[in-house]
């Protein structure tokens, strides 16, 4: 555990991506099997110990320290695992620390009932860094600035193999990834995942920003407002995967027998409706899809009222033939030929958007909001299907955000890099004329869109303008206006205002603007496109 704990500490304090890669690769080369496999799983979020929750740690600590002091400490530090590692009453240099594998085995064997005592025993055998590593491993969410992609790149670097191959084999394997290490570190045959219905890594896009592309080289498609999915049927077995590679088959059972042949297809999951794309669309807004997400079982009523379908973007594998090396154009032709063989109620084709030139395309994009579409995709006509974000191949060109002036109402301390700063803001709009005594009603929350310097100033504003405290939440004196950017707004019961924004972020902080000039609820409501 000491080597892994030292790795985590070093990663926390390392800014450079290359240095992070070097540190992880070094650990993966030197650590023994299966410790390094478990460590890799911890870095990529691949561990799950259902018996150990954040609340388990909290309760354990509250038996050892006054609950109020625990809460104040946790609130300041911004991280349960770290707070617990700092507050755990322990000796100087504990003997006999557990190995990573031993700790994983102990965590996996815990039940809700046995967890408190078993976890305490492990914590007693570790020093501060070890306790931090153990608790992070137990609860997930490392917050050390290492994405699972970075960990895979480090793995590839450690053993001098290609990261594409690592990605390809990854999803068929379970921690501690024995076959992956056997292949990369010990020269065994690569793990065989070709005949399993596993997730294949998505090809992703860069934001277009100021780039201008030539439509002779690039094709435009709508960027539909649903969720990106991969529908996989191999050996007659069908799975539906979300963007992150999570298996969401159970949530959308209507799609599992819809594919009549083996294939791996890339598309947008949508719900039938009329909001998106007007006549060309036939899809409901994202809000309708959201009602169906995250459910473990689906009622018959829901299946009838909000049937899901896939709007196809791409074909990766068709009847055993891997198309990914082919240029987009060739894959597109294969995809178009497939569509007539698919049930029309479950699949349609994402249409190519025709435009004479880039300026004409820009005008078409401006109409995207009325059609409730997120924007456009630009794909190089000769691009192969490659995992991840490759520069110059695919771009996303979202429509411009909507803007509204809101008033800061509540603030809470953030987590991770923003811990101990008041960085989570709830803001509201007026429910009438503020000069005639109207109230502010909360309409959204934002955690981003400001610089570190602005964060410091906002933190000071909250601390010096607090009028009430509700646990960790501060109510401010409503004296500051935020210009909030957001992608769309929908009816919602989550806020008293009856509205909820998608992707709200602070666009500008209007230190200069009087609060009575902030916008009213009715202005926001007029932007709803449900």
């Amino acid at each position, binding site marked *: 555990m000491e080597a892994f704990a030292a790795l985590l*500490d070093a990663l*926390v*304090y*390392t*800014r450079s991506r290359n240095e992070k890669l070097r540190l992880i690769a070094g650990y993966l080369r030197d650590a023994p099997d299966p410790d390094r496999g478990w460590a890799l799983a911890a870095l990529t979020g691949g561990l799950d110990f259902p018996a150990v929750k954040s609340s388990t740690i909290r309760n354990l600590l509250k038996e050892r*320290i*006054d609950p*109020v*002091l625990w809460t*104040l*400490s946790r609130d*300041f*530090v*911004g*991280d349960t695992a*770290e*707070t617990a590692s*700092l*507050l755990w009453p322990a000796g100087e240099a504990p003997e006999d620390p557990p190995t990573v594998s031993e700790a994983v085995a102990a965590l996996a064997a815990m039940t809700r009932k046995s967890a408190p005592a078993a976890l305490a025993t492990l914590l007693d055998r570790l020093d501060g860094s070890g306790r*931090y590593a153990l608790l992070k491993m137990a609860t997930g969410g490392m*917050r050390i*600035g290492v994405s699972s992609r970075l960990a895979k790149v480090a793995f590839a670097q450690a053993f001098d193999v290609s990261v594409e191959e690592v990605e390809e084999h990854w999803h068929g394997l379970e921690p501690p990834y024995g076959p992956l290490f056997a292949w990369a570190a010990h020269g065994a045959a690569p793990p065989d995942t070709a005949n399993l219905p596993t997730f294949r890594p998505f090809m992703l896009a860069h934001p277009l920003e100021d780039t201008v592309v030539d439509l002779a080289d690039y094709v435009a498609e709508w960027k539909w407002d649903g969720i990106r999915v991969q529908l996989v049927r191999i050996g007659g077995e069908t799975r539906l995967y979300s963007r992150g590679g999570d298996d969401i088959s159970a949530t959308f059972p209507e799609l599992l027998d819809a594919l009549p042949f083996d294939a791996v297809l890339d598309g947008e999951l949508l719900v039938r409706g009329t909001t998106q794309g007007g006549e060309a669309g036939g899809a409901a807004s994202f809000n309708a899809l959201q009602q169906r997400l995250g459910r473990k079982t689906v009622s018959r009523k829901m299946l009838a009222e909000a049937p899901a379908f896939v709007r196809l973007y791409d074909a990766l594998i068709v009847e055993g033939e891997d198309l990914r090396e082919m240029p987009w154009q060739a894959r597109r032709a294969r995809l178009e030929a497939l569509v007539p063989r698919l049930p029309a109620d479950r699949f349609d084709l994402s249409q190519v958007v025709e435009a004479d030139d880039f300026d004409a395309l820009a005008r078409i994009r401006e109409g995207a909001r009325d059609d409730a579409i997120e924007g456009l995709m630009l794909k190089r006509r000769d691009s192969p299907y490659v995992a991840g974000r490759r520069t110059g191949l695919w771009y996303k060109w979202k429509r411009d955000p909507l803007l509204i002036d809101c008033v800061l109402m509540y603030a809470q301390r953030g987590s*991770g*890099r*923003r*811990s*101990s*700063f008041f960085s989570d803001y709830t803001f509201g709009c007026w429910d009438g004329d503020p000069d005639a005594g109207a109230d502010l009603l909360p309409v959204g929350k934002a955690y981003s869109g400001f610089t*570190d310097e602005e964060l410091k100033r906002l933190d000071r504003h909250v601390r*010096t303008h607090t009028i009430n405290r509700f646990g960790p939440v501060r109510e401010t004196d409503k004296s500051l206006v935020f210009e909030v950017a957001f992608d769309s707004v929908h009816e919602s019961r989550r806020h008293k205002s009856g509205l909820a924004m998608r992707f709200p972020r602070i666009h500008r902080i209007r230190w200069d603007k009087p609060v009575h000039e902030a916008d009213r609820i009715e202005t926001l409501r007029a932007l709803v496109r449900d």
Partner: protein
Amino acid sequence: MARDFAWIRPEPHGIHVVPADCWIDPSQAVGCALVTHGHADHARGGHGQTVATPETLAIMKLRYATCAGARPVAYHETISLPGGVDATYIPAGHVLGSAQILLEHAGERVVVTGDYKRMPDPTCPPFEVTPCDIFITEATFGLPVFCHPPIAAEIGKLLDRLAAHPDRCVLVGAYALGKAQRVIAELRAAGHRAPVYLHGAMEKMCRLYADFGIDLGELRLVGEADKDAMRGHVVVCPPSALNDRWSRRLPDPITAMASGWMRVRQRARQRNVELPLVISDHADWGELTRTVEEVDPHETWITHGREEALLRWHQLHQRRARALALVGYEDEDD
């Protein structure tokens, strides 16, 4: 229990000693100020009269060019103020010249600590426990997660990193008054004899320390040094210069910061620190609570910092305490 200590009143911009019409560490200009130590949030310029230790007055003079109505008072010296108030300055162990102020009036004793710590510091005499009725304490690190390790261990980390990277320098962000000089003095105590390079903003303060007899060894200015000469050396700068363009003139610096906040990983990440050094000139949780127990006052007043937790501790230990809502004290860089 009928005593109400009405002669000493916490106001938003400082503690008012009513019969003498003096203010302790006021955040705005007043007629007569009793100043505990030279940090900018406690020692402001523009008062009619400023009562402080000679070291603190020298620091204020350095910072504000003038210090009108300076009245020096030595450690353990008692001076009489108007209205029958006696004031005695007692070492606080925070920085050079730092003092607690004991105020006595009508048989009642009040101690205002200013900022303080209990750990040894080669640059100032140690904190002295002074019995009193009202103990007015800071609480900058008033949370049980704060436990400052012995400074030798942190200095050892710095020297290990320096030895492991002879081609680079270690750039230590440290508060320009107190922390910087303490880090350098501790480096010397650990046997580090090589020259230490300074950011220009630290030069005068280090010289002032030397004038008061604190040996900091050979100091050189970054502005006058050759980039290559600084490889394998320690460079000290104010925390604000750590991520500033200024640091580009240094040879591949390893960014370190000497601060009590470095105990929390994400705090160190927020400052882009690669080598966190948990070194503080404030009392940690253990020191704060031990000090209250040793002083054993009738009531504790808490000036600034994480006052909620220290209040809670008093409640748990059946001790009387209240938080004063003073403005203007900042503790971000310690």
